[in-house]
C-alpha cells in the first residue's frame, strides 16, 4: 500500500496539520514536511508504482520518471523556502492552503493517469483560489472569484477532453499525444488555460498581485509550471505550442513594460517566461524538452526570489506602485541585492541560472533549423532584460528617492531570499549539477566565449536602451519608443510600438464588451432575480396551468 502513497499526500497531511496545530508545532510541520516530501520524492521508482480502482478505472496515483522527480523536487524546495519566507508573517490558513496547493502540484507531477492528474489539478485550483483570497482586500476577493471561475472553466474543458479520450481510446494512461481531434484539443486547451496562454492569459496578472506579499510567492511557482510538466508529458512536439509560446513571450513583455504595479510586472513576466517553456515543448526535441524542464526549474527559483523581494517591499512599505516607490536601496540593501540577482537570472545574465537553462531552448531551436523562432526568442530575451531585469529593480530600489526609509527584510524572509539567490548563482556557475537530473542526456556547454559575448552584447544594448528611454518611461504611462536607432537595433522598441497601437483599440473593445455584459446581466436579473418571473411565488392557478400545458404537450407529442 505504501507504494501508492504519493508524496503529495505528505504535503496534504501537512496542510491539515498546519491548520490544526499552533506555535512551535506548526513551525516544525512547516519545515519538516517539505523535507520528508523531498525524501519521499526520491524514493519513487521509475515506472508505475501500483494501481487503485476509482470509478471504473484502474488509476495509477504514483508513477516515477526523471522528469517527474525533477519537477516534484523543485516544488518541494519551493514549499520549504516559501514556508521559511512566510511562516512568521502569513496567517495560518494561507500557509495551510499553500501546502495543499503544493500537494496538488506534486500530485500532478506523479500522476500516472489522466484521472489522478485531474483530481490534483482541481485541488490546485481550489487552494490557489484560497491563497488569492488571503490577500484580504476587496480587490483580492473579486480577483479571487474571477480566478476561480477561470480555473474551473479550464477544469471543465480539461474534464470533457479527458472523458472524451477515455471513451474513445478506453485508456486513462498519460502518454504523448497530438492535438488531432476534439478530445485532445480540449485537453490541450484545458492545460493551456493554466499555463496562462492566450487568449486567457489575463487571470494571472489579474490575481497574483492581489494576493498577500507571501501568497504571491507561492502562486508564482506552481500553477503555470504544473501546466508545463503536463504539456511535456502529454503534448511534446505539438507544433501549435510554438506559436502559442511565442505569443506568450511577446505578450508578457509588452504588458510588463506598460505596467506600474511592481508585482504585476513580475506577473506578466511569468507569462513571458512560461512562453519560453511552452515554445520549447512545441519544438519537442530531447534538447528542447530538457530546456523546458531546466528552465522551469530555474524559473521557479528566480521568479520566487523576485516575488520575495517585491513581497518584502510591499510588506514593509504597503505600496505596490513603481511611481510611489524608489530609492529603497539605502535601507534595504539585502533585498536590493537579492532582487538584482533574481533580475539578472531572469534576464539570463551569464553566471546566473537563467543563462544556463534558457540557452538550451535557443539551442534546440537552432538545431531544428527554426530560424524565426530562434530570432524571436533572442529578441524576447532582450525584452526580458528591459522589463524584468532593469525596470523592476530600477523603479523599486533606485530611481528617485521616495523618502521612505523602511527596514530591511525580517530574518526569515532574508534567509529565504539568500538561499534562493545562492541557488540562482550555483546553477549559473555549475550548470552540470542541474543538467544531470534532466530527463534526457545533455550534451551542451553553456559557457563558450561566443555565447557569453553574444548575450553580454544583447543585454548591454537593451540596458542602454532602457536608460536612454528613461525620461519617456517616467513621464508617461504609455511608451513611445520609435527613436530610430533603437528601432533598428533592438526589437523591444518594436514591441513597444505595437503595444501603443494595440492598447487603445483593445481598451475600446474591452469597454464595449463590458457594456454588453452589463446589459445582459441586468436582463438576466430581471427574469431570475428575487422578484423575477422565474423566482417569484406563483399563484396556485398558474402552477396548475403549467401542469395542463405540459400534459397537453406530452399528449400531442405522443399521439402524433
Amino acid at each position, binding site marked *: 500500500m505504501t507504494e501508492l502513497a504519493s508524496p503529495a499526500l505528505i504535503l496534504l497531511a501537512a496542510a491539515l496539520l498546519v491548520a490544526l496545530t499552533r506555535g512551535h508545532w506548526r513551525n516544525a510541520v512547516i519545515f519538516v514536511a517539505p523535507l520528508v516530501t523531498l525524501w519521499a520524492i526520491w524514493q519513487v521508482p521509475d515506472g508505475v508504482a501500483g494501481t487503485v480502482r*476509482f470509478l471504473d478505472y484502474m488509476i495509477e496515483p504514483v508513477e516515477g520518471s526523471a522528469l517527474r522527480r525533477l519537477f516534484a523536487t523543485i516544488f518541494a524546495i519551493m514549499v520549504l523556502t516559501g514556508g521559511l519566507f512566510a511562516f512568521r508573517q502569513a496567517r495560518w490558513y494561507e500557509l495551510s492552503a499553500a501546502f495543499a496547493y503544493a500537494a496538488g502540484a506534486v500530485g500532478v507531477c506523479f500522476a500516472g493517469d489522466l484521472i489522478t492528474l485531474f483530481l490534483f489539478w482541481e485541488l490546485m485550483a481550489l487552494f490557489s483560489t484560497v491563497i488569492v483570497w488571503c490577500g484580504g482586500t476587496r480587490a483580492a476577493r473579486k480577483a479571487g472569484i474571477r480566478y*476561480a471561475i477561470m480555473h474551473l472553466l479550464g477544469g471543465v474543458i480539461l474534464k470533457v477532453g479527458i472523458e472524451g479520450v477515455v471513451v474513445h481510446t478506453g485508456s486513462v494512461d498519460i502518454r504523448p499525444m497530438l492535438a488531432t481531434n476534439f478530445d485532445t484539443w480540449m485537453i490541450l486547451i484545458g492545460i493551456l488555460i493554466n499555463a496562462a496562454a492566450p487568449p486567457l492569459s489575463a487571470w494571472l496578472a489579474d490575481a497574483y498581485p492581489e494576493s498577500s506579499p507571501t501568497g504571491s510567492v507561492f502562486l508564482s511557482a506552481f500553477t503555470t509550471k504544473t501546466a508545463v510538466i503536463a504539456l511535456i508529458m502529454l503534448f511534446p512536439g505539438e507544433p501549435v505550442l510554438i506559436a502559442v509560446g511565442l505569443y506568450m513571450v511577446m505578450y508578457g513583455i509588452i504588458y510588463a513594460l506598460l505596467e506600474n504595479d511592481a508585482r504585476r510586472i513580475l506577473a506578466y513576466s511569468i507569462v513571458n517566461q512560461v512562453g519560453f517553456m511552452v515554445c520549447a515543448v512545441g519544438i519537442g526535441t530531447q534538447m528542447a524538452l530538457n530546456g523546458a524542464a531546466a528552465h522551469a526549474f530555474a524559473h521557479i527559483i528566480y521568479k520566487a526570489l523576485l516575488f520575495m523581494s517585491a513581497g518584502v517591499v510591499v510588506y514593509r512599505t504597503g505600496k505596490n506602485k513603481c511611481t510611489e516607490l524608489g530609492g529603497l536601496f539605502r535601507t534595504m540593501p539585502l533585498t536590493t541585492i537579492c532582487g538584482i540577482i533574481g533580475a539578472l537570472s531572469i534576464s539570463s545574465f551569464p553566471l546566473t541560472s537563467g543563462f544556463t537553462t534558457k540557452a538550451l531552448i535557443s539551442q534546440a531551436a537552432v538545431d531544428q533549423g527554426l530560424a524565426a523562432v530562434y530570432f524571436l526568442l533572442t529578441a524576447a530575451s532582450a525584452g526580458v532584460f528591459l522589463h524584468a531585469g532593469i525596470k523592476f529593480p530600477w523603479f523599486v530600489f533606485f530611481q528617485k528617492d521616495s523618502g521612505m526609509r523602511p527596514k530591511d527584510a525580517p530574518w526569515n524572509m532574508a534567509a529565504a531570499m539568500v538561499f534562493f539567490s545562492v541557488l540562482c548563482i550555483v546553477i549559473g556557475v555549475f550548470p552540470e549539477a542541474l543538467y544531470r537530473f534532466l530527463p534526457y542526456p545533455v550534451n551542451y556547454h553553456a559557457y563558450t566565449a561566443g555565447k557569453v559575448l553574444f548575450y553580454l552584447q544583447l543585454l548591454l544594448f537593451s540596458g542602454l536602451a532602457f536608460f536612454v528611454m528613461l525620461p519617456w518611461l517616467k513621464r508617461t504611462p504609455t511608451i513611445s519608443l520609435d527613436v530610430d536607432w533603437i528601432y533598428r537595433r533592438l526589437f523591444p522598441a518594436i514591441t513597444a510600438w505595437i503595444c501603443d497601437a494595440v492598447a487603445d483599440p483593445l481598451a475600446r473593445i474591452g469597454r464595449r464588451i463590458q457594456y454588453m455584459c452589463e446589459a445582459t446581466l441586468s436582463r438576466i436579473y430581471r427574469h431570475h432575480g428575487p422578484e423575477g418571473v422565474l423566482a417569484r411565488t406563483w399563484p396556485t392557478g398558474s402552477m396548475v396551468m403549467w*401542469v395542463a400545458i405540459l400534459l397537453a404537450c406530452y399528449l400531442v407529442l405522443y399521439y402524433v
Partner: protein
Amino acid sequence: MIESNLPALQVILPLIAAPLCVLLRRSSLTWLVAWSASWATAAVSIAILLKVLGSGTISYAFGGWAPPWGIEYRIDPLNAFVLVLVSVVAALIVPYARRSLQAEIRSRQHYLFWTAYQICLTGLLGVTITGDAFNVFVFLEISSLATYILIAYGQDRRALVASYQYLIMGTIGATFIVIGVGLLYLMTGTLNLDDMARRIANMPLYRPELAAMAFLTVGISLKLALFPLHLWLPNAYAYAPSVSTAFLSATATKVAVYLLMRFSYTVFGRSGIFESLPFEEMLIALSLAAMFLASTVAIFQDDVKRMFAYSSIAQIGYMTLGIGLANASGLTGAIVHMFNHAVAKGAIFLLLGCVALRIGQPLMSQLTGLAKRMPLTAAGLVVGGLSLIGIPGTVGFVSKWYLVMAAVEKGWWWLAALVVISSLLAVLYVWRLIEVVYFREPSEKLNEATEAPISMLIPAWLFVFACIYFGLDTSTTVGTAAIAAETLLESLP
C-alpha cells in the same frame, strides 16, 4: 422468520411507530420511538440490499397471495439502493431533530410531528418497495399527506400557504398518476408492474396507453419537481422546519425520480418508448432548462434556504438528464446522483438548521461572518457547496463524471459541454455564500451566536464526511448504481 419477512418489516416498522407516537404523546418518548423505529428500518433496508446484491431480485408475496393476484413487493438492486438511501437518511436525521424541534415547534405538537414523520417514511418506503401499481398510488398519497403536515409546521406563516400550494399540486400529481394507472389497468387487466410490463410488450401501443404514459410522466414530474412543474418546491422547502426540509430534500424527490425510472424503463421500456416516442427529447430539454434556469435563479436569491431549494431543482435536472440519456453511464450517473445529492443537500440543510437554531431563518445578509462564530457549521456548508459544484474529491464529481461520459458516448458534445457549464453556475451561488460567510465581519444577529450543540453537529457532519468519503471511495455507491442501471437497461429491448 424475520429474514424471510424483511420486505414487510421495512414498511411496517415505521407504520406501527406512527400510532405509537400518537398514543405516547410525551415529546421525549415519541422521539425515542421514532429513533428506534427509523434505525431498525435502516438496518432492515441494509439487510435487504445485501441480500439483493448477493442473491438477486426478491419477490415477496404479501399475505401469501401469489402475484400477480396478490400484492407483490419486488426488490431489485435499484429499489434496494433507494430504500437504503431513504431509511438511512431518515435515521440520521432523528437524533439531530431533537434540539432543532425544541427550537422550532411547540413541544406539545412534537408527537404529531413525529407521527407525520413516520407516516411519511412509511409512504416513501412503500412507494419504493412495492411492485404493484395501485399500491404505488396509495403509498404516494400516504407520504404526500404526511409531507403537507411536515411542511405546515414551519414557524413562518408562509409555510401554511406553501403547504397548501403543495397540497393542491401534489393532489393533482397523484390524480394524474391514478388516472395513468387506471388506464393501464383498463388495457392490460393487471396491476402488478412486472406482469403489466410483459403484457404491454406483447401488444402495440394503443392510444389509452400513450395517454397513460403522458399522465404518469406529468404526474411523477410534478412530484419530483421537474421544471416547469417545480413551482411548489421553493417555498415548501424554504418555510418548512429545518428538519423537514433536510428530510424531504434528501428523500422525497429521490423516490419520485426512482418512480420515473421504474415506469419509463421497467414498465414501458420493452414497448419502445425510447425509440418511437419523444420521451428522451422532452426529458432532456426540461432537464437542461431546470439545470440552467433554476441555477440562475438561485444565484440571486436572498433567502439561503430558498437558494438551496432552487439548487435542488437544478440538481434534480441532472438526475432526469441521466434518465433521458438512457445508456448505462447516464443511468449510473442518475442513480448515483440521487445518493450524492441526498448527502450533499442533507448536509447543507442540516447545517442551515444549526444556523436557524441560533438566529432563525437566515437571509444571506445575516450570515455574514458565520465562519468566525460557527466555524464547523461554516466549513461543512463549504464542503456541501463544493459537492454541488462537483469538485473532484466530493460526491458531486462522481455523478457528473458519469453524466458527461454518457453524453460523450452518445457523441453529444454539446450536451457534455452544457452539463459542465451548468456546474459553473453553481460556483456562483456557492461563492456568494462563501464570500458572505468567510470574508465579512459577523452581523449583529450573529454576534452572540455560538457553535450549534454537538447533538446536531454530529449528524450534520456525518453527511459532510459522506460527501467526501463517497467522492473518494466510489466502489459502494457506483458499484451498486451500476448494477441497478444494468437491471433497468435489461428491460429495454
